[in-house]
């Protein structure tokens, strides 16, 4: 695994036929280490990607952590709520 692999960045790459996203929002309670842990363990992201998304949540107030069909995004959001994270389902930004 290399950090510079040309993997698709789910923050900017959105396909027209999968117009839903899972958004995780900044909150004043959850620890940065815990949010990173959740992204790593639930989504299976490599540590570097999990940390990048965690920092995006922290600095931008939110981050898109998954893109896909609505039902799948709802499963992710339910899982995030199970972890105690603030997460929502949203339409993907226009391509």
């Amino acid at each position, binding site marked *: 695994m290399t950090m510079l692999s040309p993997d698709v960045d789910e923050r900017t790459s959105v396909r027209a036929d999968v117009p839903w996203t899972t958004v995780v929002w900044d*909150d*004043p*309670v*959850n*620890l940065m*280490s*815990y949010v990173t*842990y959740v992204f790593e363990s639930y989504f299976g992201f490599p540590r570097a990607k999990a940390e990048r998304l965690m920092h995006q949540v922290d600095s931008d107030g939110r981050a898109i952590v998954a893109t896909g069909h609505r039902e799948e995004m*709802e499963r992710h*959001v*339910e899982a995030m*709520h*199970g*972890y*105690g994270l*603030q*997460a*929502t*389902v*949203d339409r993907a930004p226009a391509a």
Partner: protein
Amino acid sequence: MIPFVRRADGVHLGLAAGERAVLTSLVEQLRQVLDHDLATDPVAVRMFPDAYPEDDEASAEFRRYTQEDLRTAKSANAAVVHEWLTGAREGALSRSDEQAWLRSLTDLRLTIADRLGIVDRATADNGLDGDDGSVGLRDVYDWLGYVQEHLVVTISAR
């Protein structure tokens, strides 16, 4: 004491007796919130946030399908943590025990943050003022953060 200790067979509880007693009491209160008071408790919006912030109907439908399962899972997590604290479980935490601990510590912090009025960065220091030297809810909140941070680091060091 160090909250958790990694040994050859896994993560063990390292909390001192007094710390266990404090946490046991907190977990019992959490179980009460989860089992009885949720409908009228403002912490519910933190534990079960709107999935569609701009669509009340979709949020309500999502809640109908998910809230009871989530609540049941949170209660079960708290029960597991309670068993560890009271000695009903001992030895090394299983993977699912680790999850129960991480999630219950989060639910506890969400609940206490609600009581302290911590809703954003501007209120993140609520409860730090007027320290008279006694151990208050804010101290408990920060200590729980330390315990959780320690567990995340200990688990991640696998």
